[in-house]
């Protein structure tokens, strides 16, 4: 697996995948929806899969002395690595804005209201939705890609749209101040003792969904890949 991951990083992974993973740092940008980086990360995988197809990576890999399912495993681990990298970048940016006073803390003290920003701030709940978004994206895109003989465009569009839905909902609910749904908004975008449990539940729910769907998708795709005639 070590060698296959080396192959992924030396040959298969397009530089743009690295660039888009760093877009987690976009949370530093004031007045900009924090969830947008997720869509960039999702779309960046088109570079990875399109590049692999153009470079005949599947054939190159299939001729090596490795198990066929390990080819899928290496690709899944690469995706995992970049999704996690983007989340770490976003977390670093989110925590930094907290200390800089224009992130969630700003909203809590009622001075800046998310730094004057829009949508959901980088709270624990936000990251729960990010995990959920990636979970949906991975399940839809990877299952469609491997089960439909490496189709790319339709799976990418469909999975990105469906994957981004939870974040759109989060953005909407987080912007309900002054409406009857203000309590939901409060739970999602304020860092305080009374919101901690709700946010922790969303965060853990997001991670749990991500992990479970990741394994289920891997087993399904690996099984399919082993049966495909190349």
């Amino acid at each position, binding site marked *: 697996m070590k*060698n296959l991951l*080396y*192959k992924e990083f*030396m*040959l298969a992974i397009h530089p743009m995948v690295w660039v888009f993973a760093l877009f987690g740092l976009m949370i530093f940008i004031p007045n900009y929806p924090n969830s947008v980086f997720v869509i960039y990360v999702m779309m960046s995988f088109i570079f990875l899969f399109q590049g692999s197809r153009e*470079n*005949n*990576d599947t*054939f*190159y890999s*299939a*001729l*090596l*002395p*490795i*198990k*066929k399912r390990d080819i899928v495993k290496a690709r899944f681990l690469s995706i995992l690595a970049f999704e996690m990298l983007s989340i770490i970048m976003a977390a670093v940016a989110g925590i930094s804005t907290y200390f800089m006073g224009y992130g969630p803390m700003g909203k809590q003290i009622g001075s800046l209201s998310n730094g004057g920003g829009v949508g959901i701030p980088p709270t624990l709940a936000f990251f729960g939705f990010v995990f959920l978004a990636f979970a949906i994206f991975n399940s839809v895109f990877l299952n469609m890609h491997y089960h439909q003989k490496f189709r790319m465009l339709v799976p990418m569009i469909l999975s990105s749209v469906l994957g981004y839905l939870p974040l759109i909902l989060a953005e909407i609910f987080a912007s309900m101040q002054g409406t009857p749904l203000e309590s939901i908004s409060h739970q999602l975008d304020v860092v305080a003792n009374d919101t901690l449990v709700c946010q922790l539940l969303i965060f853990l729910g997001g991670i749990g969904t991500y992990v479970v769907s990741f394994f289920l998708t891997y087993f399904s795709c690996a099984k399919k890949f082993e*049966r495909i*005639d*190349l």
Partner: protein
Amino acid sequence: MNSNVLEVTNLNKKYPSFELKDVSFSLKQGEIMGFVGRNGAGKTTTIKSMFNIVHPDSGTVLFNGVPFLDHELENKQKLSILLGGIDYYPKTKLKTLSKVTKRFYKDWDETKYALLLKRFSLDENKRVQELSAGMKVKYSLAIALSHHANVLVLDEPTSGLDPISRDELLEIFEKLVDEEKVSILFSTHITSDLEKCADTITYIQQGKIIASKGLKDFKNDYLFIKGEESDTFTKIKDKAISYHSRHNDIEALFKKEDYPSNDTYTPYVPDIDTIMVYLERKNANEEPSI
């Protein structure tokens, strides 16, 4: 010299519009086998089915005496497959590609690799797309020999090469077999290549092996006549595998045992090209006319 490194028995694979039917043949150590057939006859499908790139419906493949599938990873350490030239990672430098590839092989020999690069005049700083078709095959051979593969399976390695490059490559094949004791199975539809270096011929037609034997034996199974049309030809033409007649000139291929002796024509042993053309012509004759 006589042990089989590759033994394919009753390989079957069915597609909606094509079928491999009971493909069986064997490759001996130190042998060059030409795997021949027209385009679409099933050469690539056979190679892919042998090595689990596509999944055969049935059949067994023994590789160095052990079932290929049961010991796939160990077997692939000793196997090199080249499917239609290296067309992967065209923009990557050879040195990067080699750096990645070598990590997968337990017996990688760096010294040998360096020697082979020199011998084949390969510049590691070149990108794959900058190599000529012949150089790409040489690079694949360098990789194969550096991980001590003893069976090289090359699908159409000489296609697209000029006659000089083809000749050079065939000479390399001969040297590899003599010096490195490797065995080579190479598929081709350029039959003149086989005349130059093949020890054995395996002929596939519409997914079925119709002959697998020594080059001379294969050719000696057939007789060819050429001449003016005559009453004799009218009498014997039904015995021919196929024939061509135009403006009173005739050409016909016979199975040796079916050739009716006569004084009009002087039969001779044809070259593989002629055999292939007339075998396939027969096949075309069997199809309904347009």
